[in-house]
């Protein structure tokens, strides 16, 4: 178990350290510390970035970087809050490891968060002519309602 070592190493950079169970650790860091924390976890502790979850909390965006240590099975979940509603920006981790390339592209198109330093933030999953500024995972995105085929039948008969 390396969580105490991690805690020591990151002293002063995190808050809300929360051990949900021995293998799931959550803590929050400041946006500006993201790169240095990721570097410590990735380079010093040889952790693997599982993925990044982006959440729209209504008034802010929350990015959770899931770092997994494959030797001990611990999962460190680093929370980053982005408070800007318009034009939210976060540092990109692509210069460190390429695993985030697609992850960040996806978050960009789904939530509209810009990653500074990402080489090419084009659409990954959505069509290229998907309307700009329409981010499907934001709470503000409202989609049209389509009736089911059987509903149509009911209307007709």
């Amino acid at each position, binding site marked *: 178990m390396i969580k105490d070592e991690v805690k020591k190493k990151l002293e002063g950079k995190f808050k809300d350290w929360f051990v949900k169970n021995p293998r799931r650790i959550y803590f929050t860091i400041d946006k500006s510390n993201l790169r240095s924390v990721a570097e410590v976890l990735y380079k010093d502790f040889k952790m693997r970035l599982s993925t990044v979850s982006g959440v729209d909390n209504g008034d802010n965006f929350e990015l959770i970087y899931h770092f997994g240590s494959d030797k001990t099975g611990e999962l460190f979940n680093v929370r980053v809050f982005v408070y800007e509603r318009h034009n939210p920006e976060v540092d990109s981790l692509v210069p460190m490891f390429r695993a985030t390339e697609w992850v960040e592209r996806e978050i960009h198109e789904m939530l509209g968060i810009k990653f500074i330093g990402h080489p090419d933030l084009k659409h990954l*999953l*959505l*069509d290229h002519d998907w309307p700009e500024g329409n981010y*499907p995972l934001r709470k503000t*995105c409202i*989609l049209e309602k*389509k009736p*089911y*085929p*059987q509903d149509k039948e009911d209307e007709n008969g």
Partner: protein
Amino acid sequence: MGLKEKIITKSLWVYHVSAGSCNNCDIEILDCLTPRFDIERFGMQLVGSVRHADVLLVTGAMNKKSLKRFKRVYEQAPKPCFVVAVGTCPCSQHMFRPSYSMEAPLDEIIPVDVYIPGCPPKPEAIIAGIVKLIEKVTKK
């Protein structure tokens, strides 16, 4: 029943188009080719180019990105070309219908000859669907 219909139904070359499916129907279609089901004994073959196709087996709920491609594929297919919707997704878009990236069920885009519901339909069901198609073509 003319000679033409009889000949075409004895040699259906199928082309498999997946438009936002979950893979289940796709592997069940491939399963039809393998030893237990072996649709080659009915003269059906899976072909690689849509130019050779007689039947388009469409799976998936037809999302916006693949729709454009699919329309092109359909235009490239030489007629007569039959369309079979394999699985509940192309029939009614299944549980994916309200999603933002979905366009419309298959039959609102192109005419569909046979629907094979099921999630996924068993290979037996797919073969039964093709038999229905053959009945439909020969009775016309």
